[in-house]
């Protein structure tokens, strides 16, 4: 199991003040797979996702225990450069959040601060390639100087994915990336996820069971802060091992 593990989390606990939101969760994210996190609202999916790139550091009162490693390297080690870490483990949020800047600048920002481009031409190349991979290039190539916020919701979300890709990450975390999108925009993001698979390890949080079934190879079901079941997506949705998983995915949770 460790063979292709990109991220290993062992015995992770997360607290918000005195309240424990994640209880002793261990899980491996494989390099070549899309992993989906599912579970009822408030079960801790976002909280656990954020432990994978230390986004919880930015939340006052949040405390993380346990061991999380990226390629075997302890990401909570004192020596870890968090800015660098978040470039390696990028994140796409539920609501598309482009900067109030041009489309070009939205994508160019990351590579520029990380010094990934040696020239203007190279930067332009990175921007184009990222927009290509995010499936947005054809729609925006003639309007790169327009504001990112002027795009439609689905386009904004792909812009955010392009922005995450631009810094050449190893892992992309997506927290309900399609929840604000219509079915067509959703289908395009899902298509994009399959295109990106293999190039990046991907973790996606979703409330849409069919989406989890379509885009992921592994699924993790969380409930009340615990990881109840983790396994092959196809088995999970046709024959889950745990009663709680079954009740949840068949709409009997209550």
């Amino acid at each position, binding site marked *: 199991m460790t063979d292709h593990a990109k991220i290993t989390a062992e015995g992770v606990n997360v607290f918000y003040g005195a309240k424990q939101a994640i209880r002793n969760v261990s899980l491996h994210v494989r390099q070549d797979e899309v992993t989906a996190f599912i579970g009822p609202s408030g079960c801790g999916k976002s909280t656990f996702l954020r432990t994978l790139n230390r986004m919880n550091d930015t939340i006052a009162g949040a405390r993380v225990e346990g061991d999380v490693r990226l390629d075997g390297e302890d990401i909570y080690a004192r020596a870890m450069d968090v800015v660098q870490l978040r470039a390696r483990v990028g994140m796409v949020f539920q609501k598309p959040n482009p900067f109030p800047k041009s489309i070009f600048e939205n994508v160019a920002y990351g590579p520029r601060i990380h010094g990934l481009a040696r020239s203007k031409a190279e930067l332009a190349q990175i921007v184009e390639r990222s927009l290509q991979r995010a499936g947005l290039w054809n729609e925006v190539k003639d309007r790169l100087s327009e504001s990112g916020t002027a795009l439609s919701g689905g386009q904004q979300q792909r812009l955010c994915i392009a922005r995450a890709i631009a810094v050449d990450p190893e892992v992309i975390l997506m927290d309900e990336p399609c929840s604000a999108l219509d079915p067509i925009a959703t289908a395009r993001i899902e298509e994009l996820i399959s295109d990106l698979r293999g190039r990046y390890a991907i973790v996606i949080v979703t409330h849409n*069971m*069919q989406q989890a*079934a379509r885009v992921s190879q592994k699924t993790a079901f969380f409930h009340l802060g615990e990881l109840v079941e983790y396994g092959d997506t196809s088995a999970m*949705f*046709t*024959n*889950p091992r745990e*009663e709680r*998983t*079954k*009740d949840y*995915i*068949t*709409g*009997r*949770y*209550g």
Partner: protein
Amino acid sequence: MASQQEHTVKAFDQDIGQLRGLISQMGGLAEAAIGHAMTALQRGDLELADRIRQDDRRIDAIEADVERTAVRIIALRAPLANDLREVVAALKIAAVVERIGDYAKNIAKRVPLIEGEHRIEPLSTVPAMAKIAAEMVHDALDAFAARDAAKAVEIVRRDRTLDDFYDSIFRTLVTYMVENPKTISQCAHLLFVAKNLERIGDHATNVAEMVHFAATGNQMTDREWGNQ
């Protein structure tokens, strides 16, 4: 095994309930058709034989209903896990039960063909075989309604008895034909009847296997089949 808990969306439970109702209705008709076919055969009752053909249209109509209902459930509810397995099983079972109805109809078709001939003795063992076949159909559909995997295993094992029956009837009929060539036509028809019953048993076994998969998510093992 089967989740007793209700769906949060109540209409989902109603849809599944409707699907189960249709399958059990279909099964009831198919089971009755086997019994009627035997009675018609024994009594040379042409009217009853004709009714079996009418009833078969109802079985076909219900199969179409099952298909519509299952497709609607898949489209509207996107069932998963045990729900998904049950809907898929219902679709497949409906197709199999429809075939069972066809076999009963095929038996009924032979009634006029041997009508007027002197009834030969082996005819008396055929209804006993039919009784077992009809019971297998009945129990397989009961197992589906109850999502009872253990019962499904038990049904599959019964198929042996039916095969033994068929072999025995086959031998008897062949002996009869050799001894008394005048009975060849009637014997040949009875041979087909026995074959149809044997096929009905195979189909009931199929249903039982689907029930097992729907209930457990696993195919029956060799051990459950009684193969060792």
